[in-house]
């Protein structure tokens, strides 16, 4: 009379799985900024007033270590020919007028070097800079 129905496990529908994955994929595709510069090994100073840079897309990087090695977006600049910095930055600024120059300078570097770089930036009218620092005190 009352026949037992064969039990079937109710499966979760996976039909929308690709859609979910695609959505995640698009999120990462849009937010990803692929690193363009390699840089040189150095230790940046630490500070309390460290702030995040709002946009990574409008950045030019200048790296300088304590020995006076300077690179502008991975292009080596000879210390005797610092005028190159302003030329390189000028071309970047022409492409993007919201450019911020991130100065990644080793903490042992001398201010003379820093000033020379800043003078070059002023020549190129790139006045918005950011001294790259680590956050002092716990956490980061």
């Amino acid at each position, binding site marked *: 009379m009352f026949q037992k129905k064969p039990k079937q496990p109710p499966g979760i529908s996976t039909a929308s799985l690709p859609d979910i994955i695609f959505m995640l994929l698009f999120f990462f595709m849009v937010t990803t900024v692929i690193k363009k510069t390699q840089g040189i090994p150095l230790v940046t100073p630490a*500070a309390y007033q460290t702030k995040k840079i709002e946009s*990574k897309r409008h950045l030019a990087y200048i790296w300088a270590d304590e020995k006076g090695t300077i690179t502008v977006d991975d292009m080596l600049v000879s210390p005797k020919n610092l005028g190159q910095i302003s030329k390189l930055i000028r071309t970047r600024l022409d492409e993007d007028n919201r450019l911020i120059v991130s100065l990644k300078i080793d903490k042992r570097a001398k201010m003379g070097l820093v000033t020379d770089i800043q003078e070059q930036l002023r020549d190129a009218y790139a006045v918005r800079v950011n*001294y790259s620092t680590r956050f002092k005190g716990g956490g980061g």
Partner: protein
Amino acid sequence: MLLEKKKKHGYEINSSSMADIAFLLLIFFLVTTTMDMDKGIPMVLPERGGELKINPKNIAKILVNASGEVLFDGKGVSDLELKELLATRIKERGVDADGKPKLLVSIKTDRETEYDRYITILDLVKDAGATKISIAEPEKD
């Protein structure tokens, strides 16, 4: 009839591997995404040629020598003293119409001063609440 029309089958691309492809792409972007935020102290360098006349009362001068010692308005001070002195000076001078402190802090370093020391001072000055900061050019020797 002999030539019976075959029933048309709806041919479809097998989409069962779509999820796998999407996963693969997803993992690629997950791996390449760099979440390390660029952090730092924002500054605006002075533009060339633009000289402003400022009431000398509204300027605080900080001098840092090659060995990192600080001179604030002609007096040698420690880092802690500097911060306190600056904070009181900022309060004394009051704020502009736009709500920013009137006091302009000028930082001058020696060419031999370490960059780390300069950042520490700049950090202190910002911590004290100053928003107008000017970087004076060190004298060439």
